[in-house]
């Protein structure tokens, strides 16, 4: 069953006071939530900014221009530039497969697409080691040809793709299911090629949801820690992505440096949330609501 579009939801008109709307109940519940949210969600954000700047802007800028941190930023960006487009391609293909066609095993395929959500990133990292590591399935072959996958960029990208595989697909599937196949069928009947149908009919209908999935995917790729820390080997100045660099600096008791690096990722997170809010509004206005699946 699909979530109903906002416009079709039953408009609730209250004839009596709804539960919890009384002034006392309202004040108590709102008070508790506000206090806990300030302590639990706002304080960590405030602390990151305040710690990064606590020793002055000079130290902050110098920390960010540290060669190790610079390299980590570059590696993180490269990883995202490869992993996110791959995930968009996969998301489009997967959503197209399971929403435009009916075939046996469709439900199983949807479950498989969502599988990485439930697996710990550490398990994903360990699993990759047993494929491409020297102890792994392909290790000897890769060694023979002198190819390096493990403890290098390819493994970082692969592990990032594993943990974010469902991100774009999960946004597209509910939306494309609601939209059905009528428009595509009309286009094909009128003689449009498969590609033209996809490009002119399907893609414009799902572009905001696709962008939304890609933005979330990007934030997760840039912030992934567990899976990447296993497969990257954590070689200083070579395979440390930004989250790993934060841990290295922290272990070196360079707390100012760690927080400076953390502000970069915090900025990515905040921008992600702002774009999400904007895209949700666009979705409401164009009456193509973005899916709000549980949990991400």
């Amino acid at each position: 069953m699909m979530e109903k579009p906002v416009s079709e939801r039953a408009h609730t008109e209250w004839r009596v006071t709804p539960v919890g709307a009384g002034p006392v109940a309202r004040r108590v519940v709102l008070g508790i939530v506000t206090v806990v949210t300030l302590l639990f969600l706002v304080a960590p954000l405030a602390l990151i900014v305040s710690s990064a700047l606590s020793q002055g802007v000079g130290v902050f800028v110098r920390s960010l221009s540290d060669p190790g941190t610079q390299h980590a930023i570059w590696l993180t960006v490269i990883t995202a530039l490869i992993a996110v487009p791959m995930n968009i391609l996969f998301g489009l293909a997967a959503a197209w497969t399971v929403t435009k066609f009916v075939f046996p095993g469709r439900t199983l395929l949807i479950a498989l697409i969502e599988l990485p959500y439930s697996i710990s990133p550490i398990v994903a990292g360990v699993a990759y080691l047993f494929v491409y590591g020297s102890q792994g399935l392909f290790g000897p072959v890769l060694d023979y040809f002198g190819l390096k996958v493990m403890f290098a960029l390819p493994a970082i990208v692969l592990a990032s793709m594993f943990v974010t595989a469902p991100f774009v697909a999960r946004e597209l599937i509910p939306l494309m299911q609601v939209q059905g196949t009528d428009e595509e069928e009309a286009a094909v009947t009128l003689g449009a090629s498969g590609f033209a149908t996809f490009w002119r009919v399907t893609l414009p209908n799902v572009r905001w949801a696709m962008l939304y999935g890609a933005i979330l995917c990007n934030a997760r790729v840039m912030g992934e820690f567990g899976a990447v820390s296993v497969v990257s080997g954590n070689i200083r100045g070579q395979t440390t992505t930004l989250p790993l660099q934060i841990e290295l600096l922290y272990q070196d008791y360079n707390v100012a440096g760690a927080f400076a690096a953390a502000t970069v990722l915090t900025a990515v997170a905040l921008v992600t949330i702002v774009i999400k809010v904007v895209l949700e509004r666009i979705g409401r206005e164009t009456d193509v609501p973005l899916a709000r699946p549980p949990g991400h």
Partner: protein
Amino acid sequence: MRRSVIPGFGLALGITFLYLGAIVLLPLCALILKASDVGLAQFWGIMSSPRTLSALRVTVTMALAATAFNAVYGLLLAWVLARYEFPGKRLLDALVDVPFALPTAVAGLALTALFSKNGWFGAPLDALGLQVAYTPLGIAIAMAFTSIPFVVRTVQPVIEDLGSDVEEAGRSLGANDFQILWRVIFPAIFPAFLAGCSLSFARSLGEFGAVIFIAGNQPMKTEIVALLTFIRLEEYNYEAAAAIAVVMLLMAFTMLIITNAVQAWHLRYLGRGDA
């Protein structure tokens, strides 16, 4: 398969299978293959060692504690967002996404600094004799932080969709607020609530980045299973790493089956409401 006029089935299915196969299924198969090499006796030895058992116990107990906290706070947060209008509501709604958007390593770093002995919260708590950083309590806090949006985002749309008619009927039959809450509203949101809680618990079991900063990582005391797996790898003890990772994978599958069953129930529930 029903014939469709839309082309591209083969290509799209091909890309989907290739990607899933190479990126998701191949590594999982390799892991299971490696673990199956270990042998039952050795596997049992690894899993029943005091250190593994302690890590499992710490992880499961603290994940339960984190889920319990999220159940209460998440439900209240969802209620506030769905039912009340107040200044700053948009901001609160956006804040719920912080734990998912913020990298876990950053969250871990920030929570550790907050709760360490001279931190904003750590200093006053220390004066009261309560230590959070480098104790199991810190682990639970890190787990709760990273998984709070699961409960909120599963329950919130269900409360929003709740019609006024049942509640008004209850009221006209003479029920008080508490009775309506307990007998009418809670049963309607319970399946979604349960689904959100199981997602939160599953995520907490596997959390790594946020936890290892604040945990202190003392073997037998504040070491989680994910970290133990990582340590076994660094010791080149691949058998142990594979064995523990497979157990974590099994726990994830179990939670996946439970969550799916709960969600199926939740959808049936919604379906009946619509009819």
